[in-house]
């Protein structure tokens, strides 16, 4: 994934979870992030659809379980 896209994804995570700059967003997983609820996921998806001009289907949502998993989905979409 190009660094610019990776930075955009990191920025989306930082904004949605209101994180400090030194927080390692690449380690975020739904299971260990108490504030990762349905609203947070909706915000992440909306952010990505807006920033990357792409659309996700329901099958993608099911696998959006961490920063790494979402990054992998974006890579598979050619980003």
């Amino acid at each position: 994934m190009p660094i610019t896209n990776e930075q955009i994804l990191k920025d989306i995570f930082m904004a949605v979870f209101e994180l400090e700059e030194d927080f390692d967003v690449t380690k975020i997983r739904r299971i260990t992030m108490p504030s990762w609820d349905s609203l947070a996921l909706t915000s992440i998806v909306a952010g990505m659809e807006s920033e990357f001009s792409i659309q996700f289907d329901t099958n993608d949502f099911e696998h959006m379980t961490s920063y790494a998993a979402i990054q992998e989905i974006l890579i598979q979409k050619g980003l």
Partner: protein
Amino acid sequence: MKTASFQIDVSPKDALRFAELSGDWNPLHTDPGHASKTEYKNMVLHGAFSAGLISRIAGMHIPGADCLLHNMKLRFIAPIIPPASLTVSARLVSETGGVGRVEANVSDRDSGVRYVQATYEFGHHKIGVSKESAKLSIPSNDEAPILVIGASGGVGSALLKILGNKGLGISRGDLEGSFTVPDITRIGDVIGNRPIKSIVHCAWPAPDNVSFSMLDDPRSSIKHHVSEPLESIHALTRHLIDHGTENASLILIGSTFAKPGRHNFRMPLYSVAKAMLPALSNILALELAPYGRRCFSVVFDVIDGGMNAGINNAVRLSHADRSPSGKLATTEEAALQIMWLLENQSHLISGATISLSGGAMP
């Protein structure tokens, strides 16, 4: 990034050959008289013929011999009217986590007019897997062996490797070093009356992927996924009663779909089959106890390898994310846990369904 291309001439005869293969005799593709009355004036090549050309470039060029095609998307831009000379070209756009993404085109060789725009994703199938499994050995000592049903791959194969000459592999197909038993209900005919220390049953059919209400042939599907495995377990229970040593166990290996409230709506029959395990363990524990035998189930969450070897990286990551450790179990790890349970000689374990999911969330 890697590129590839080939050229091919297609004729009206090719359209007829494709109709013979596919059964698609739509007159636009096969009847010049009908085609002449349409806006195309001539027979149009089947759109799916182009899918075959994309398949060729995937299977022969990018990635080639070890191609495992995940999906293919085609956009038909213009009709191909044979005879035509075509160029099929492809470009690898990305490859990460074992999944490659390719953009491909089918164009006119001379004019460059694009007929079909395609994308496909691929993984890699493993080569030499059967050779790896062929290292399994038939016990040479006098000790009663542990039967491993479903020894040809996944957890069964890993378990048999660890057991070495204490294990005896049973496989439905040919597997060097194991007994071939196409029909488990006839197991006694093949392995004879030798005493058996325990039986580990890992031989479940690969998951289904059709909605239960949409099954084309429900009798056959239910037989394959539910009835036949149940019949096999019945036969193994009888075999253990007749030939098991004192305290021998029937160990049923399954998935966490066996747990109450767990299922996967995408694989309904697989879920139903696994859901039988807790009840079956209790029933067989009761029925086997008078013979001094035991039965219990061991269920794992998604295991990396075996029937899951082909899942794509995003799906693998999402399964790992459900686990507190962030890791999936390997087939070897699962096999070592079964070894640990094989050492347990307590009567207390009988009837249990032991979940070794690492605390994975549903």
